[in-house]
């Protein structure tokens, strides 16, 4: 092949698609609860598990989970991480942030990735490692204006 002078180039491309994703009855009601500062779970009448977010059916028994339970707004940290880096979805105004999984009292699962610890100067990393621990107790702090999504809980406050 003849010698090629040009450097191989790239072309810009972009794909953007808006979606309208159905929440269904269970998740609609779950987020309606947030507007009233309530955390709602559903209970499986076969295995007895209470799960948050509420579920339309039990993943293990495959039975409908139709019994609604208002659960505690306090719980225990199962795990946490301190994010001090920007990447897609984490913008400079968001960091540092402390993501955590919390086991709410009386609930049979952890929260997954929608819960953040706050309410003190989290820029002070020394302070963070003193206060935030696996097993530490936390309580939900709600926003004044709530819209029926996970951002309605502003942060989870460490309680002594």
């Amino acid at each position: 092949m003849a010698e090629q002078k040009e450097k191989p180039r790239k072309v810009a491309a972009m794909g953007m698609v808006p979606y309208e994703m159905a929440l269904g009855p269970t998740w609609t009601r779950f987020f309606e609860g947030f507007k009233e500062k309530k955390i709602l779970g559903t209970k499986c009448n076969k295995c007895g598990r209470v799960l948050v977010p509420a579920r339309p059916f039990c993943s293990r028994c495959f039975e409908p989970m139709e019994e609604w339970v208002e659960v505690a707004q306090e719980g225990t940290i199962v795990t946490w991480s301190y994010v001090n880096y920007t990447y897609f979805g984490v913008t400079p105004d968001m960091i540092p942030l402390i993501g955590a999984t919390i086991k709410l009292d009386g609930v049979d699962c952890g929260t997954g990735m929608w819960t953040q610890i706050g309410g003190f100067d989290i820029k002070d990393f020394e302070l963070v490692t003193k206060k935030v621990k696996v097993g530490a107790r936390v309580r939900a702090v709600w926003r004044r204006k709530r819209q029926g999504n996970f951002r309605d809980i502003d942060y989870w406050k460490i309680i002594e």
Partner: protein
Amino acid sequence: MGRAVAVIGTGQTKHGRRDDLSYPDLVREAVKKVFEDAGITPRDVDGVVYGSMPSMMEGVAYNHFYFADALRVVGKPLLRTETCGSTGQSVAHTAIHWVASGMADVILAIASEKENEGDAQATMMTILEPFLQVVIGGAPIAFSLQSREWMGYYHIDDAKAREAASIVSVDSHDGGLANPLAHIRVKLSKEDITNAPIITYPVRFYDVCPISDGACAVIFASEEKAKKICKKPAWVKGIGFRGEEYFIGDSSKAVWQSTIEASKEAYKEAGITNPLKELDVAEVYNPFSYQELMFLECLGLCPPGEAPDYVIKGTFSPGGELPCDPSGGVLCTNPIGAAGLIRVAEAALQVTGKAGEHQVEGAKLALSHAMGGAMQFNGVTILGSEL
């Protein structure tokens, strides 16, 4: 498990930032090498299996249509398999099932990623639906939360976990240096790693895999064909794959059942009762050094909660009882869709004595592994030098 199956050839691209090539050219680089290695032609192949990350990462939906020519699939059946990080293991298993079933004798398995063309984290955030599980997004936080859960569950001291993670990172980077195809090839000290900036605590910069472009191809064949075609095949001794529930908080990620069960199944099939003693080398999926610690336990390579002790005493280092990721692992090379198949290819190179500078002397039995899904899947493939 059906008929015996062997790896009769492997081909990997040079991994790294490969914007010198179009995506089909990159795939062709691996496919060309695998045919040269196996000494056969596309005419000898009965079918093709392909996998990558989802369309959002690729910039084109169903990229196997775009790559049809590079995959040498014209006139042949094609299967696509994908399970996020574990895609490469899934692709290998699909090919193995195909041959083991007797429906095909020779199958070409290919997996690839051009991670630099798009945005890996943006893609990761589409792995979960956008209203129930994603608020603070991305893979680094997910795997850091998992690592901390493991540390909390076993009461592992921060400093001890940090030291072990640094050793994992040093060893992997030394492996990358010895592997000419690896993406990251630098010499790092424990201090470099321990003092690197925090990404998602406890994870620091050198605990995290790079963004790589690369492709990998492996040819699987039946016993009859393998013995005819290949002087030294790598035999599939056992495979295991397990999935879990969707909601991340529903089960323990510290005692990760899908890893435990997938490896148990593979060991049972391979007749392995003491994996630490019997295996000679392991290619553990390690996009995060802390995660490798948890995997060492869940793969049954050391007792639960004791991975840091084993790592610190050198069990999994070069020259140790079971060297892990001599290729540099995912920490040095992470074309995601291909990463799980690279583990299989590396295991094959090891048990056939073809790993070159990163060869583990006399390796006869090797484990390869990958995890994927929304922290949901684990796949294990064990290869050996003897049928």
